[in-house]
């Protein structure tokens, strides 16, 4: 979507003058993309572009969420997602509280629910949660009164990452319908893959998951996803490649013989770019392992939109915060 049409959307939703959250948005939390409709996903994408435009590409601070407080509750290391949420909150005029702690609650002696309740008692309006264990934001949403935003729960979902990936594709191709998007790498341990799969399928894209058989379940086919173990075979058909990081930290047992062998089979390099479609988009959720999932030439090459993804991340997170907190008296849905 161009900036002109983004501004049109902003005007249509009275974004700049009398901002209101549309009635078509009725969620209190953003826990994943699995249970959002295509319309709801599109709404977030549209608002992301509108808010990005309204902040004059990040140069102007809005006061849409003035007086609201957002807590970043990160139980797992993160720099980009945490900073992205912080910046998004600040560009909307909200205050932020940062809490980070690594390790599970067993190691700390305080349950993560108690930690979250403590933060909530500081009267925050939303908590942004990242945790190495799947389902933690869902558990928090049952124990807290405020909004909960999933910033990545184990290998389960990372909805804002899925949304920013999809927004980046839409900006380049106009629409997702009919595009072939391949997620390459460690699908089993990837929350980014899961959120992308739900979002892409709902918006009409064809999705391929590709990687070593120990990390790519055949069962994905039952959800209408193509499963492939050969990047070279699917390469000529792909419009977009999303190169997932190998999550060494989540793999209890090394699922492939060596990084060397992995790069031979799945790394995106110049030679593979030559066998791709001329306008292929190369994406990566980051942090990227240069030389593992992709070579530096590809990461910095003309097909790469990796840094645009980062910029879009802030826009998506602004839209998310605004939709969840933008009503004066949020309805509890």
């Amino acid at each position, binding site marked *: 979507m161009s900036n002109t049409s983004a501004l049109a959307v902003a005007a249509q939703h009275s974004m700049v003058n009398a901002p209101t959250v549309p009635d078509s948005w009725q969620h209190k939390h953003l826990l994943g993309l699995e249970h959002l409709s295509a319309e709801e996903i599109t709404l977030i994408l549209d608002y992301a572009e509108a808010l990005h435009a309204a902040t004059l590409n990040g140069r102007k601070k809005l006061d849409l969420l003035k007086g609201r407080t957002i807590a970043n509750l990160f139980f797992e290391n993160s720099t980009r997602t945490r900073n992205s949420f912080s910046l998004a909150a600040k560009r909307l005029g909200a205050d932020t509280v940062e809490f980070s702690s690594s390790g599970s*609650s067993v190691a700390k002696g305080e349950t993560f629910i108690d930690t979250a309740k403590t933060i909530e008692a500081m009267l925050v309006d939303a908590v942004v949660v990242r945790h190495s264990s*799947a389902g*933690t934001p*869902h558990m928090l949403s049952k124990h807290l009164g405020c909004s909960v935003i999933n910033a990545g729960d184990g290998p389960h979902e990372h909805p804002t990452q899925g949304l920013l990936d999809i927004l980046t594709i839409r900006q380049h191709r106009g629409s997702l319908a009919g595009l072939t998007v391949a997620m390459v790498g460690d699908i089993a341990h990837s929350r980014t893959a899961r959120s992308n799969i739900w979002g892409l399928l709902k918006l009409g894209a064809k999705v391929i998951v590709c990687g070593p058989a120990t990390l790519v379940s055949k069962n994905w086919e039952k959800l209408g996803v193509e499963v492939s173990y050969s990047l070279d075979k699917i390469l000529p058909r792909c419009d977009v490649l999303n190169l997932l990081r190998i999550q060494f930290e989540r793999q209890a047992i090394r699922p492939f013989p060596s990084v060397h062998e992995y790069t031979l089979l799945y790394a995106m390099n110049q030679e593979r770019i030559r066998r791709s479609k001329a306008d292929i988009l190369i994406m990566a959720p980051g942090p990227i392992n240069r030389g593992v999932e992709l070579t530096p030439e590809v990461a910095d090459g003309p097909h790469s939109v990796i840094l645009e993804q980062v910029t879009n991340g802030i826009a998506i997170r602004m839209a998310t915060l605004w939709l969840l907190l933008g009503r004066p008296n949020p309805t509890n849905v």
Partner: protein
Amino acid sequence: MQTHSTWLFENARLIDPSCGMDRRGRLLVVDGLLAGIDVSDEDVPAHAERWDVQGCIVAPGLFDLSTEFGEPGREEDETIVTGTLAAVAGGYTAIALSSNTDPPIDTAASVEFIRQKGARADNCRVYALGCVSKHQQGESLAEIGSLVEAGAVALSDGPRPIENTGLLRRALEYCSMFDRVVFDHPEIASISRGGVMHEGMEQLVLGLSPIPAEAEDLATARDLRLIEATGGRLHLTSISTSGSVELCRRARARGIPFTNGIYVANLHLVDTLMRSFDANCKVSPPLRSQDHVDACLEGLRDGTIDIISSGHRPCSLEKKMLEIDAAPFGMIALETALSQVITYLINPGILSWCDAMAKMSWNPAKLLGQSGGTLQRGKPADLIVIDPDRKWKVDATALQSKSYNTPLNGMELDGVVLATLVNGRKRWACK
């Protein structure tokens, strides 16, 4: 609590799984012993308390082989007092307590501790299971002879599987000297380690670590082969996969002697419940997909599965408030097991009352060579009175168990235990 032990139950539906009886009649209990069915009036002592149980079932008390409490060592989960109270509230008149305590029950003194605590609690009969391996560490045999001498009714490292095949083989051989059964929780841990839920579509979507069905299938196959090889006695505590059921069915057809059990959770709860990320749904064996549940029900129906166990495994509230990866496995079940069986097996017609009671009382009692599971004259009057038509709603906080970890909270179930009698003495009466 009443100590009266002479009763006449009138207008009862009497179910005796030890002889396949299910008919109307009156049942006499004199001084704590079963004294016959359809006795004439002159045989009824004058001091007998008459109870007209029209519309209700009188059956032998339930006998559980897979109960875990926390005492000693984890009293925050369950003590022998609270746990046995939960047992009688659920219709159990006898339980075999897991050796999984801290320290584990691997010495004669600890067996004695369990038996004394059980006797002092004076709720239901409490039997002790001894460890198969020292400290339950799965390496070398515990002093099984001493454990048996002290009163251990069977040997078990449960809920841990006996991973070491050599150890299991030795245990089967060694226990045959004492005519004791070895219990194994069939699971190949090198396949399932780190797993949280049943591997399948739900698990794929949720991104939780998998417990593949074949981890159980392979252990079942191994165990059955070892029974054949050693002639030892083995009980598979917890069957939950279609593969296990099929292996057991074939083993029965070949005449291999063994017993097996299923936990009530695996009778009707499925892996889709994990979508709630409620740690109370994290149990072992894991909640499987519907096709596995269906295969287990067929196994119960055709006699492939002998025994229905509670799988009662209490965990204090704070332990289940952890992330699903970190929370311990287990659910409490003593107080819901019978109603789960009535609701999901008896009322839908999968098992008759008599068959269901056999799997919950007569078969487990027979397996351990203990009394129970019968209405036969002269045996101790361990009885339950059940109102099969009354419904109730599970309220975890209102149960007798010290812990609340059940995924059934809020669910409506059929069948209420009106009274539980042990040695003819009423140890539980429904309010």
